[in-house]
C-alpha cells in the first residue's frame, strides 16, 4: 500500500505506468484535461493556484483515507500548479486495487472530495481577442 502526491509546476508530463502492486486486479487512471471553454467563454489556459502545504496534505489525507477504507493497493495523484494550456493535463489519479469495484468507487470519491475540499483554484486565462476583421467600408477597395 502506497500513497503518492505530487504538485507539479505547469502541465503534467506523460503518464508513466506504475508497476501493478502484488494482488492488484484493477488499475484505473483518470486524467483531467484543460478544455477550450469555461462557463464564461473561450480560454487559452487555466492558471492553478494551490495553497501549500495544505493542498498537498489534503490530497494525501484523502488518499490515505480511501486506501484504508477500501483496501486499495496503491494511489498516485498529481496536480498542476501555474499555467496549463488547453489540451494539456492538469490532474492525474491512478489507483490500484484488488477489484474493479473498489478502484472505481475510490476514483469517484477522490475526485468529488478534491473538488470539494482541496485548496486549489483555477483561474481562466481568457482567449486573447483575435483582431477583428476590417469592415468592408474600411477597405480601400470597398468604396
Amino acid at each position, binding site marked *: 500500500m502506497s500513497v503518492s502526491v505530487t504538485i507539479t509546476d505547469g502541465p503534467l508530463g506523460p503518464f508513466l505506468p506504475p508497476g501493478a502492486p502484488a494482488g492488484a486486479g484493477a488499475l484505473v487512471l483518470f486524467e483531467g484535461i484543460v478544455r477550450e471553454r469555461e462557463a464564461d467563454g473561450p480560454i487559452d489556459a487555466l492558471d492553478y*493556484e494551490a*495553497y501549500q502545504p*495544505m493542498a498537498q496534505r489534503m490530497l494525501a489525507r484523502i488518499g490515505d483515507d480511501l486506501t484504508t477504507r477500501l483496501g486499495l493497493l496503491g494511489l498516485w495523484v498529481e496536480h498542476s500548479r501555474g499555467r496549463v494550456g488547453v489540451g494539456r493535463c*492538469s*490532474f492525474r489519479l491512478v489507483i490500484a486495487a484488488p477489484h474493479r469495484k473498489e478502484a472505481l468507487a475510490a476514483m469517484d470519491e477522490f475526485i468529488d472530495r478534491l*473538488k470539494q475540499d*482541496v*485548496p486549489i*483554484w483555477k483561474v481562466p486565462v481568457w482567449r486573447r481577442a483575435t483582431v477583428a476583421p476590417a469592415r468592408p467600408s474600411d477597405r480601400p477597395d470597398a468604396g
Partner: protein
Amino acid sequence: MSVKVLLFGAARLTVGREHVVVDAGQAPTCRAVLTELGAAYPALRPIAGVGRLAVNSEFASGDQQVRSTDEVALIGLVSGG
C-alpha cells in the same frame, strides 16, 4: 486584533491582492473574521459567505478562536481538478 487573511483564486482576483488585513475585535472567532471580511470587502461577501477559513492549513470551525500567530486563509469554494 489585526488578522491577515490569505486570498486565492476568485477572491484574489476580486480584491487584486494576495492578502488583506482585517480588525475583527479581541480574540476573534473564525466567524467574526469572516463577517469582518465581508464588511470591509463587500466584493468578498459571496466567498466569505461560504464560510470556510483555514487556520494553520486546517479547515476551522466558526467557533475556533484565531490567535495572533495563526496563518489564516480564505478557502471558500475550490476548483481543482
